């Protein structure tokens, strides 16, 4: 284990038990996250990226279940085997202090009957031993450093726009200076103009406080401008990991290639081709490589055997038979 890794995800398997079926949403995922990086998880809807995030956080409720694998969180001084913790322990020891999770649509989770400041005061009182007056003072100071005005502090959630509520949620998530922030589609419900302002702030905070940010988004352009490294997920598996620049410049996995080539660009009208077919049903995934039914380069072996994760060059991993010499 090297020194600058904050999270190890090793062969994690998880999925949903629905009736007699098992939806294999996270199927043997390996991942390493480093201190102070912005890591993007990209992929289409239903590929398991949100499930993976939830599993890392440990908020696991039926029908979701983790079947195997280990998740290890390392701070500078401590090490936690998160997979051995149950939800109560996680709540007491890990959540908010070490890891926070901004679930999808988080801007709608604020309690509409209490003011914004009361959300923070409540958090302070739950997680540190200070009285109400002091908590209030800290809240106002804290929100001011994040550029949220007094008007916002005293408002009720419904009085704020979506973008402002999302900023409040991010402020809540960063309250106790966590090591790792998991953000699930933080801007997908916002307009592009609001999105830009929010992403700017998120990146600024990330630089200042140097936490590790995991960003889940289906929007490849957001990954392209925000993340340092990116992991591409397809049908419950991570198929490619690499630095964002490299992955965009020279995608290796055929799925990544298709995903990037299918993006229409401003100021260019060249006809583009999308992928044929649709992602597989995860309760009955295809054998071998899960991408093979849609892959233009599919070979015999792809239909039979699952490709292993191969390190092509330093910190550039791909899971595809095209890159394996036999």
């Amino acid at each position, binding site marked *: 284990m090297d020194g600058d890794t904050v999270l190890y995800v090793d062969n994690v398997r998880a999925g949903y038990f629905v009736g007699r079926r098992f939806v294999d949403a996270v199927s043997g995922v390996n991942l390493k996250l480093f201190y102070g990086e912005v890591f993007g998880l990209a992929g289409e809807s239903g590929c398991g990226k949100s499930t993976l995030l939830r599993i890392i956080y440990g908020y696991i409720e039926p029908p979701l279940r983790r079947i195997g694998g280990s998740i290890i969180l390392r701070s500078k001084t401590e090490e936690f085997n998160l997979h051995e913790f149950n939800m109560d322990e996680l709540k007491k020891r890990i959540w908010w202090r070490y890891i926070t999770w901004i679930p999808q649509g988080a801007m709608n989770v604020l309690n509409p009957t209490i003011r914004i400041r009361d959300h923070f005061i409540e958090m302070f009182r739950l997680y540190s031993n200070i009285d109400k007056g002091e908590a209030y003072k800290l809240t106002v100071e804290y929100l001011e450093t994040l550029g949220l005005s007094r008007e916002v502090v005293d408002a009720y959630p419904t009085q704020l726009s979506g973008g402002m509520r999302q900023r409040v949620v991010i402020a809540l998530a960063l309250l106790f200076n966590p090591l790792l922030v998991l953000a699930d589609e933080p801007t997908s419900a916002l307009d592009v103009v609001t999105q830009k302002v929010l992403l700017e702030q998120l990146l600024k905070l990330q630089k200042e406080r140097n936490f590790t940010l995991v960003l889940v988004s289906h929007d490849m352009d957001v990954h392209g401008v925000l993340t340092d490294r990116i992991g591409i997920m397809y049908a419950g598996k991570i198929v490619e990991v690499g630095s964002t620049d490299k992955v965009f410049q020279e995608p290796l996995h055929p799925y990544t290639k298709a995903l990037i080539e299918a993006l229409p660009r401003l*100021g260019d009208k060249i006809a583009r081709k999308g992928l044929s077919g649709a992602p597989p049903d995860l309760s009955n995934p295809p054998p071998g490589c899960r991408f093979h039914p849609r892959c233009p380069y599919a070979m015999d072996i792809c239909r039979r055997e699952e490709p292993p994760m191969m390190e092509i060059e330093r910190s550039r991993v791909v899971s595809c038979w095209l890159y394996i010499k036999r």
Partner: protein
Amino acid sequence: MDAPLIELIDVSKYFGYGIIGLTRFPAVDGVSLTISSEKPEVLTLVGESGCGKSTLAKIILRILRPTSGIAKYMGKNMWKLSRSEVKRFIRDVQPIFQDPMDTFNLFESVEGYLINAAKSLLKLDREEAIEKISQVLEFVGLTFDKVRGKRPQEFSGGELQRVSIARALLVQPKLLIADEPVSMLDASLRINILNFLRRAKEELGIAILYITHDLATANYIGEKIFVMYRGSIVEHGDIEKVINEPLHPYTKVLLESLPDYRKGKEWFKKQLPQTLRSVVEVREMLLKGCKYIYYCPFKSQQCYEKPIMIEVGKEHEVACWMYSKKE
């Protein structure tokens, strides 16, 4: 020259808000536009959520009656058509919706729906209807056998959206109104749907109004662009021209805030030329003058008056006072 297929003249639509809805705001405010079927084009209507673009689509589809102004079909007021003209209108102007599940009845097979539609609108018997349906399904890369016996929920989103394009093409329309047809689909499937729309225009000569919040896809298939902000059209013209040289301050901000992976982290370096204030949207909608005034860094006293459309080039108009002085 014949009257254009669709013509809107200073159309507004007011909705009530507040507890009993007595106070009203304009969701669409004084929009004029013309869609001709002689030279079919792909027009795109771009704006943020809540800017009134779907309301405008519903006005063009004759679902909503404008509060003021006239919506014309073939030179006649849409709401004063005879019954046979209404039938003609329905055949000529066809919608494609955001969620294909909305298009189809969940309790009816897709095949049955298509056959009934073909029978009643085109006056065909069953055999002819199936032949016609096979043709349009082929156009979107499907076959009748693939559709047979299936209910809407048994299709994937991309497939069902293709069926709904086929459904719209069935009656040989002159205009398709596609309201966010790809925003529910994944990136790798999105482009296929856009390609079908493109082909519909090129091969079948159908004009298309493509409504979206996504400038990149608009640029991909569009020829003209209408930029909408809080109910009004602020700029329109040839899409390449508008994207390369946006004139309205809002169009500029919209273009610059579009993330683009090619720019990487450089994207953040450019600050938006926009002042930030938290304003309630309804209040903006109610403004008498320019609705962008709270954000605009170039505002002047004149902006409290409603800006008129100013022609700045061939078929390029912008609703901003900045461009009125240059004459």
